[in-house]
């Protein structure tokens, strides 16, 4: 089988997880699905680079993280990517009413620097191990754990869970 077929077919069952990761990274539903579209196009274009002995999910998650970083750069960090007024749209986009707690969570996540947000998305939302996240981000494991600890501290402080 051609590698592009293997990648294409392998990605189908990964779509829900890819969308979850994108949502955790990008926040808004529309942004997240735009990100997923970019990721799928890149993955298909680069399918020859995927080695069948490598886990396809980690491979495509790395593409997703890099595409998200590219998107952040393109928009400019100073721009309003996660500005507070947009957080309201995040909730409205989801269609269903959500508890206020989740609005606060979206706002709290939006304050995290990208370095922290991506470890939260990969380890806490997607459930990767420290080793897997470190390999994907191409940083030492200690960097993953320290970013994760600081991100948790920030989130707990913002969410008022640290009382």
């Amino acid at each position, binding site marked *: 089988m051609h590698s592009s077929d293997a990648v294409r077919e392998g990605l189908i069952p990964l779509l*829900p997880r890819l969308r979850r990761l994108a949502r955790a990274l990008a926040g808004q539903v529309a942004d997240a699905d735009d990100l997923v579209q970019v990721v799928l196009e890149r993955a298909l274009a680069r399918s020859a680079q995927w080695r069948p002995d490598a886990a396809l999910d980690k491979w495509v998650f790395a593409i997703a993280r890099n595409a998200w970083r590219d998107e952040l750069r393109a928009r400019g960090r100073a721009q309003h990517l996660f500005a507070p007024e947009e957080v309201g749209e995040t909730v409205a986009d989801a269609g269903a009413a959500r508890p206020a707690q*989740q609005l606060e969570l979206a706002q709290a996540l939006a304050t995290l620097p990208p370095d922290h947000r991506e470890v939260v998305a990969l380890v806490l939302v997607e459930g990767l191990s420290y080793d897997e996240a470190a390999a994907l981000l191409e940083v030492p494991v200690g960097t993953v754990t320290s970013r994760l600890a600081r991100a948790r501290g920030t989130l707990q402080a913002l969410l008022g869970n640290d009382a």
Partner: protein
Amino acid sequence: MNTIDDDTLQAYVDGELDAAEAARVEAVLAQDDALARRVRQMCALDAQLRAAFDPVLDEAVPAHLSALLQAPAAPATKPAARFSVVAGGRGAHPASHRAPRRWLMPGAALAASVALLAAGLWWWQSGSSLVRTQGDRQFATGTLARALDRELASEPDAQAPVAIGLTFRAADGHICRSFTVRTPPVRAGLACHTTAGWELPVLGPSVPAETGELRQAASGLTPAVQAAIDARLRGNVFDAQQERAARVAGWR
């Protein structure tokens, strides 16, 4: 020796410690209210994150995204909606795990045959005893017990003779895992961890012959298994992180 540094505490929450280290942390937590409270705070935050993002797994995938993954020469009879496959385990229904037959392309079929052959060889070498009976109860033994102890659904091994499906904590507090024995005779079942080992409340034939789809077999969700899960499930099916943490904790 009696203190736990921050990195270790976080690694404990994230299921990154081995059983011995985790036990040491737990011993200290039992004596240290402040540390125990920090663990609860971390777990609460993790639960909040999962509650916010896991529902995405159950959403229908937008058609324009699924369409990108269609085969270039896809038959015209293939509706895009068939790709709205829910993966990731949690809250999934058996029907949504049904894969289009087209997934089994010739190459995949060949790979599957090789896997089956390898699994068959393993079966032949290891003997066929996967179940022991104790009174009127059945327990996993041999390779089945080892797979239930070690394998993670989040790290599937297509070559492994046993495929793990869903893991969850049953209403009675025991951790249960659905599984499929890939080697003939293919069987699907549910195993619940008890002090006497992995008890098997359900074990039966797996794939209806007319479909013959390996992928469906891998989900392990026959009607009997699904019914057994429905009867026991309280709360959510474990995600990858909870599954790993449960393994670290010895499935207790």
